[in-house]
């Protein structure tokens, strides 16, 4: 069976004065086309590092990522990124922010056509009325709606979401999860989402990949989420497997919350002198 995205022996390390600090080591994962995968783990475990390597914003130390038969080298608009902070350019309106990407990707299309694409996605995320406002005039939730529209508008091969709802209150988060799910249902874009919210992962994804704690983070556990689509929050929560899965995830996170003694690392014969603190790198520090 061929896979759409394949991570093989993906490793990220930074050189430090005391030798290389290994953030992620031998990360292996295969994702099918149209699959929604959530990456879950503790803050600073390296899950965001994996995501930014897919995005091309962080260099791959060793190993490789293959997307649709091509190795990922550098950043590009074939991967739509939804940043944790919406990362909208504040001097542009919501519409202009979305257009910036569309102009890059669909430069052969007529201007009217490109505007239509932007308007389409902005109205789907519920910004039909206020697409010509600047980010400062929008609420945090509305800004992230723009961020989602911007990513989808590129018709990317893959969608990368870096804790997209981490900065929102729970009510807004629920709304935006619904918006994201609705758009994803229409487009079926292969998605990788980093989160530390167990319920969010269960509600949105087909598979949940649990990462062990860094340094030297790797895939710890993979869970299949059996809930039928299209999903309703109520139906998902009432599903007989919901609490078992939830418990399983929380248990996994709890075990890995205690860094010492580390159950997985303790088994390893060779333990390098790992620095207690991960050096701050542009992206890797955000988690």
């Amino acid at each position, binding site marked *: 069976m061929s896979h759409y995205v394949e991570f093989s022996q993906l490793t990220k390390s930074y050189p430090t004065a005391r030798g290389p600090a290994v953030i992620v080591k031998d990360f292996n994962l295969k994702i099918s086309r149209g699959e929604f995968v959530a990456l879950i783990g503790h803050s600073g475990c390296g899950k965001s590092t994996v995501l930014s390597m897919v995005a091309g914003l962080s260099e791959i130390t060793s190993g490789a990522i293959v997307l649709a038969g091509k190795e990922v080298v550098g*950043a590009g608009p074939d991967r739509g990124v939804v940043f944790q902070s919406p990362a909208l350019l504040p001097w542009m309106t919501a519409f202009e922010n979305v257009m910036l990407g569309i102009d890059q990707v669909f430069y052969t299309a007529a201007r009217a056509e490109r505007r239509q694409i932007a308007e389409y996605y902005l109205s789907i995320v519920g910004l039909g009325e206020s697409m010509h406002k600047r980010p400062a005039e929008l609420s945090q939730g509305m800004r992230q709606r723009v961020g989602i529209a911007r990513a989808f508008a590129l018709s990317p091969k893959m969608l990368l979401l870096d804790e997209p709802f981490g900065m929102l209150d729970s009510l807004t988060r629920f709304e935006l999860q619904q918006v994201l799910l609705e758009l994803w249902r229409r487009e079926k874009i292969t998605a990788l989402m980093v989160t530390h919210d167990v319920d969010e992962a269960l509600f949105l994804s087909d598979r949940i990949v649990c990462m062990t704690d860094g340094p030297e983070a790797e895939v710890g556990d993979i869970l299949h989420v059996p809930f039928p689509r299209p999903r309703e929050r109520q139906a998902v929560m009432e599903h007989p497997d919901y609490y078992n899965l939830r418990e399983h995830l929380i248990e996994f996170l709890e075990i890995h919350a205690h860094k010492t003694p580390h159950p997985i690392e303790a088994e390893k014969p060779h333990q390098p002198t790992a620095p207690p603190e991960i050096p701050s790198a542009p992206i890797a520090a955000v988690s």
Partner: protein
Amino acid sequence: MHWFHRFKLDSFLYPLLGIGLCLLLWYGVAGKSTVTQTKDDWGDTVTITKRHGLSADLPTPAETWEASRSYVLEPFAKRGELDQGILRFTWLSLVLVAQGYALALLLGVPVGFCLGLSKTFAKMFDPIFQVLRPVSPLAWLPLGMVLFLSAKVEMPGGTAYTASELAAIFTIAICSMWPTVLNTAVGVRAIPQDYLNVAKVLKLSRTKTLFKVLLPATLPYMFTGFRLSLGIAWLVIVAAEMLTGRPGVGGFLWQQYNALSYAHIILCILTIGIVGFILDRMMSLVEARFKTA
């Protein structure tokens, strides 16, 4: 006392009080004249004016006004090359400052960008900038004179620049560009990584990244630099005009000092101060506009 605050009287009564106190102090320090009339040996009346006081030659506020009247009340009059209404002088100075300032911005912004973007560039030139920055305009001007001694620039419009004009413009530019250079560099370094990531993910070209991301993100910092630069450019004008002898507020000031007309020195100082204040206010308004963007 609440009527006092209700009508915002404090916001203009107190400044008025401050000005009044300063005028009083000025009057106290200034020299006063006593006029005595005596008859000389031939029986003619002789009027002797004697100045006395803490600073005998400093004119009082009233004397200053009396001497400055014609310059203030006919601000655009031109009676001679170095005898013009005060606003006419101000205009001449502003034109010169504008040219030097424009040159400062034109040079300062790209240099600031290079300084902020390239670590190598910063390492190479930052020490030089730090050494050149505190050099006084009085020191730059002679160098400017030497630099442009044999240069005579003819502009396509028909206007020609003399060596002294070029030296003045050079001095204004080189003294006032540093705040623009440094603030632009700080602004470039302060661009959030998120914005740069957006540019990377969308694969914006270099020019697009510059004009759509880097430049707008740096604008607020740049305008802070522009405001500080304008303040310095205006500060330098007196020195530049003094040494080159050009007509303008600074040139007028120096000439009147040589002519022992001290009241006009005070007139020039006040004019320079007020114009500088207005320029700064105008730039803060522009700056505030870009802050919210």
